[in-house]
């Protein structure tokens, strides 16, 4: 009898801390390494607004832009890896190989909430009425077609580089860099560049109003967006061989360092998954022309690894990234 009592006593003493130390105990900080209003910012805020309710603590959002997201991510990496600092961003494949950071993509655990596909779009007055027109121009008149992207290392730029690795004609465009996706899209609208391979959400309203025309979507299937009265054909319709690298775009969601305690990870995953099932989350996808994926931790990490593998090696092989992915133990696809 005594032994039982002692056992119970000891057990409860051991259990007590576990019960008391329930994550989360204090407020959480979400760092958005971009300016307010961008995709990462909007998606991050949307998700944590619901997660706040589920977890019962305040999640404050801080914008720390700079160096294409590196500064904010570094801040999160330097903070204690206790699960109280999160990042809202897209798959972080580029920073290491571009020599901007020491950490590797797999140092971050990922929740891929939304997939934003790349779309090749032109101005409504453009001479290129179909994707074939544009492709022929690229193939036959190298260095005459101009494409606006958000700069070297941006998703739009990377998309073109990946396409180039399958079909060299895609390297024949003159790459014009802008300070962001929105600026690149505006330049296409203004007619300064011929096309833009940027993200769907950056051009969605212009597509809906007809000011921009989508020639092809960098998705595996044809893309139907709400409010658009035509279906955007997948680029594989025109060039079957590129199917192997589709889809091309960005997966946006939340991140935290991978060595955060398991308890915190589980709590975050549960709250996150719940946030992706809300009406607000679905409405966001429809409005913004993005795809709600809501992948769990395992699936997201798998996506992260697949994308990283493919994209970093292409960037390195093309000379667009100075640091070899080998240094980060990233295997070839």
């Amino acid at each position: 009898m005594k032994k039982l009592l002692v056992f119970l006593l000891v057990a409860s003493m051991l259990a007590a801390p576990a019960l008391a130390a329930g994550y989360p105990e204090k407020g959480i900080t979400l760092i958005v390494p971009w300016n307010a209003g961008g995709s990462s910012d909007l998606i991050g805020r949307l998700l944590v607004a619901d997660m706040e309710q589920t977890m019962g603590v305040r999640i404050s959002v801080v914008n720390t832009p700079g160096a294409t997201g590196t500064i904010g991510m570094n801040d999160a990496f330097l903070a204690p890896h206790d699960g109280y600092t999160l990042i809202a961003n897209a798959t972080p494949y580029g920073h290491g190989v571009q020599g901007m950071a020491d950490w590797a993509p797999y140092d971050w655990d990922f929740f891929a909430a939304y997939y934003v596909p790349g779309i090749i779009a032109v101005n409504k007055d453009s001479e290129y009425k179909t994707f074939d027109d544009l492709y022929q121009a690229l193939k036959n008149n190298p260095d005459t077609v101009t494409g606006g992207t958000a700069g070297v290392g941006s998703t739009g730029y990377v998309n073109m580089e990946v396409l180039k690795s399958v079909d060299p004609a895609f390297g024949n465009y003159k790459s014009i860099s802008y300070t962001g996706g929105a600026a690149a899209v505006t330049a296409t609208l203004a007619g300064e560049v011929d096309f833009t391979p940027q993200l769907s959400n950056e051009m969605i309203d212009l597509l809906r109003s007809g000011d921009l025309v989508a020639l092809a979507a960098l998705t595996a299937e044809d893309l139907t967006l709400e409010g658009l009265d035509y279906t955007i054909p997948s680029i594989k319709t025109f060039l079957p061989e590129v199917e192997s690298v589709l889809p091309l775009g960005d997966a946006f969601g939340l991140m935290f360092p991978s060595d955060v305690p398991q308890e915190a990870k589980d709590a975050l995953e549960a709250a996150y998954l719940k946030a992706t099932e809300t009406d607000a989350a679905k409405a966001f996808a429809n409005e913004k022309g993005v795809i709600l994926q809501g992948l769990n931790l395992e699936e997201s990490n798998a996506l992260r690894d697949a994308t990283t593998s493919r994209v970093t090696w292409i960037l390195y092989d093309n000379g667009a990234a100075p640091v070899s992915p080998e240094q980060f133990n990233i295997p070839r696809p």
Partner: protein
Amino acid sequence: MVWEYISQAFAVVFTPLNFIALAASVLLGLVFGMLPGLTATMAVALLTGLTYSLSGPIAVMVLLGIYIGAISGGSQSAILLNIPGTPASAATAVDGFPLAREGKGGLAIFVANASSFLGTFLSIVYLILFTPLLTSAALKFNSHEMFLLSVFGIVICGNLTSGGRPIKGWIAGFAGLLVSQIGRETVGSFPRFTFGVMNLTGGISLLPVMIGLFGFPEIVQSFSAGLRALITTQKFSAKEGFTIMKRNWFNVLRSSILGATMGSIPGVGEDTGGWLSYWAQKRSAKNPELYGRGAIDGIVSAETGNNAAVGGAVIPVLSLAIPGSAPAAVLLAAFWMHGYRPGPLLMTETPEFLYYVVVFMLVSSILMWLLASNMSKLTVRVLRVDQRVLMPAIFIACVIGAFVVNNRIFDVKLMFFFGLIGVAMSYMKYPSAPFLLGVILGNMADENLRRALILHDGSIMPFFTRPISLFFIVFILALVLPQFASFRKLMAPVKNLFSRKKKG
């Protein structure tokens, strides 16, 4: 239909609880604007987070209120302390502070507030009338035009110095341009002048530079300030203020147009609006030497200009979903967050939004005027506080301000560094305003010039064949060439020809 929307908007504003919320946010904006280091962008961003759970119209109302308040509030610290509360008010400090030192601080603030109100009001009018026109004009401003616009800004640096020689203004301006080149550049993401320091790859933030540049000379001066006589602010009559405003009607009109235009061009914001208006006023003034030493008309132009940019910046937000300035960018994000659809679909999806915005801005600007005028009675007392105590305390506030921009202590160190530079510059009699302008314009000049050249394979012909570019080039030459004595000699016979013809 339209009338319905407008009356709905007014109904929202004049609901007692909402009205109080609006007044509070305008007040908050004024305070934010006044504190050096806290900017309009930050104010809107902070409130965006706080109003996330509020209903759409109320959130938008409150955000517009704080935006207008913040841009206007900066003038008070610019005038009283020579430290602009926000970059937009830097031009106000040039003439405002000398006026405050003479004891005319109250009058200066009164005029500044009235100008802010008029600037905002007129820009709302332009918003209603000219949105389609300004939108298509803004779209025509591509890389070539943006580059020339920045060159234009650099050129007017020389004329912004007070009494001193233009060449020192230009040197300061070019030094600022060089500083802006630090960090990863836009075209190829190549890191420049970073010397391995990770925190420099993002470039030098404007705010630490501004606070250091303008604030430190004042703070350092305060260390030996027992020597400065304590300033007593004279009382002024509102009538005097109104007379000044009436006299400046053309100034106000011109500044509002310039400010609104600058605001509507994406990438150019309230600060440029203020500077351009100030410069235009100085050029056309009868006694330009007075500017920089207390010309009250300078304040009118600067404050009208920077506030007019508010309405201007909202134009492309509404018509294209492209922000005209940094605070407008945060505003745009907030609009999206609340389900509004600014952009080409505005009138088809959420047409009432336009009218809401117009009404909210109108009421905010009136509230701003009322609140600011009453606040100034308190803030003017700041001048009576012993500078030796005030300035070091302001320094602590500046430290927070510099930190808050990017949430890192590195920016505080940056502020200190540029503060030392600011002290050196004031000691060596270099004006700091052009330096700041250089930092603002440098990146714009760099990325646009290179993009323009890359687009046309190095050819500079497009600069001369594009109509807006050509206009800029001619205008810039008209400003620069007369500075050279050799050119003046060349033109002398031409001038004589014209004057002789007149007499004949």
